[in-house]
């Protein structure tokens, strides 16, 4: 387990909610921010704020250095070959939409296939639905096993020579399942398809290595990994990005502009139209520093351990159902559950009254809820700052909820 000292880096956690010390178990929705990320944002605005890539003046140079420095941190964080492959965007949703609208529109035709799974987040479903409708392509879903995992054989059945894109989440935001992305990428490539990875729940929790995975695109968000909201990353292989058209046009992304024709800057800037998300990128860089100081391997182990403790203690509550893989080692620190017939909203309200923040609802995964045959669930998600005491508070809160409603 990680040191409890880590908690002290997060000023927000030091408060009472409804008369109880806050236990924050909603990090899969958004994580809290350590002081050093808050300081990085503050310092940028206080000392270095200027637009990037255009100022001759000193502040402009400083802002550019910090912004491009953050790009290098991201490159190292996911082990990309070049910073040209790192594009700053608003978040995972924008990154996935960009792949669909740029790569997808140019490469998917009538009768071609796009393969996703039943566990995807809405942001990795709807961009492909829209693309499939526009192009007359076929959207195929790989079904799940009852324990919330994906069998590679079912991926092999779904992916054919007509498949142009396979897009799958690395870690499920509901089930916590860690999908075998490397093996799925091999299957996609064997059929000439590109592999898109929704890394929103993976980047905060485990070491990413895009060269080892060999995926073609990877999308993730800063705010789930201790960074600010409004910043995310699209990684793409250089040879693919070079052949793709930008989705947004305007300032910052152009080379020469004529009256009727224009040309684009080189990578990665051709995809960063307008004044970029400078403070956000710098904040993300600070978040990466923070996570790397702890170590992603340590973070992953910490979450497996908390998930294991939570699953064991929660299972002791009569009538409580936990969804997803039974093996805590096969899941990230996400435990989604239902407490008998007590509706998840009521569970979440009871917990909130006791200072515990969890998510309740469909978690932006309506097709998955349908597959699990429930309209809603409650979710506790753990991160670096959570402790075994937090699990105990959760279990105590659940017992109160059960007693109150039964």
């Amino acid at each position: 387990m990680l040191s409890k000292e880590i908690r002290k880096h997060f000023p927000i956690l030091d408060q009472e909610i409804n008369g109880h010390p806050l236990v924050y178990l909603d990090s899969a929705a958004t994580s809290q921010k350590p002081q050093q990320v808050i300081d990085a944002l503050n310092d940028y605005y206080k000392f270095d704020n200027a637009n990037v890539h255009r100022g001759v003046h000193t502040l402009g140079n400083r802002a550019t250095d910090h912004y491009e420095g953050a790009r290098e941190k991201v490159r190292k964080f996911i082990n990309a070959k070049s910073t040209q492959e790192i594009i700053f965007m608003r978040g995972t949703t924008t990154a996935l939409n960009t792949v669909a609208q740029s790569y997808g529109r140019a490469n998917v035709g009538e009768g071609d296939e796009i393969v996703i799974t039943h566990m995807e987040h809405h942001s990795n479903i709807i961009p492909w639905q829209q693309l499939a409708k526009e192009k007359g392509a076929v959207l195929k879903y790989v079904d799940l096993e009852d324990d919330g995992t994906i069998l590679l054989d079912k991926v092999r059945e779904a992916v054919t020579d007509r498949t142009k894109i396979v897009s799958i989440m690395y870690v499920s935001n509901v089930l916590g399942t860690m999908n075998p992305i490397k093996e799925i990428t091999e299957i996609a490539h064997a059929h000439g398809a590109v592999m898109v990875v929704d890394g929103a729940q993976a980047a905060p929790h485990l070491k990413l290595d895009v060269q080892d995975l060999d995926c073609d695109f990877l999308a993730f968000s800063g705010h789930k990994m201790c960074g600010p909201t409004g910043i995310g990353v699209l990684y793409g292989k250089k040879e693919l990005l070079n052949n793709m058209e930008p989705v947004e046009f305007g300032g910052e992304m152009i080379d020469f502009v004529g009256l009727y024709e224009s040309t684009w800057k080189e990578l990665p800037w051709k995809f960063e139209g307008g004044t970029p998300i400078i403070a956000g990128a710098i904040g993300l860089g600070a978040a990466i520093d923070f996570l790397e100081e702890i170590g992603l391997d340590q973070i992953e182990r910490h979450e497996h351990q908390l998930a294991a403790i939570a699953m064991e203690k929660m299972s002791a509550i009569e009538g409580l159902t936990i969804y997803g893989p039974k093996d805590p080692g096969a899941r990230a620190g996400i435990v989604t559950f239902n407490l008998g017939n007590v509706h998840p909203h009521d569970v979440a309200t009871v917990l909130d009254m006791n200072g515990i923040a969890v998510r309740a609802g469909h978690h932006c995964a309506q097709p998955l809820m349908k597959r699990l045959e429930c309209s809603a669930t409650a979710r506790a998600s753990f991160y670096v700052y959570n402790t075994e005491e937090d699990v105990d508070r959760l279990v105590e809160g659940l017992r109160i909820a059960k007693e109150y409603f039964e």
Partner: protein
Amino acid sequence: MSTNNLDQLYRSVIMDHYKNPRNKGVLEENNVTIDMNNPTCGDVIHLTLKVEDGIVRDAKFEGEGCSISMASASMMTQIIKNKDIETATKYAHIFSDMMLGKEVDDSVDLGDIEALSGVAKFPARIKCATLAWKAMEKGVGEDSKE
């Protein structure tokens, strides 16, 4: 930990309607059917009404949702029965004001509904409480003044 704060929200009348919902089911002889959902949380309601000569003769509901949404649906069907559309809509408006924490006309007898006034202090739960009322308003063809 305590449950005192919870009692402000989950008053006994609400829990009674939740555990023993009135007018649960599907009205066979209905002429109005409304399906509505709350996309942020997945709550659903299937409301059937029998409206004759501008009067709601009968009402039943089925649905899936939390205690607040289901209790609210139960109370709603109870109070609009045998009321004319104008009165039913008026109740919906009063209910909406109540959820916004506004002063409500105390000349109107709200019956059990008054128990839901505590929901106004729980902003995340207001949409749970209003779902059935929105469905009813849509059903009787009156848009809320909201």
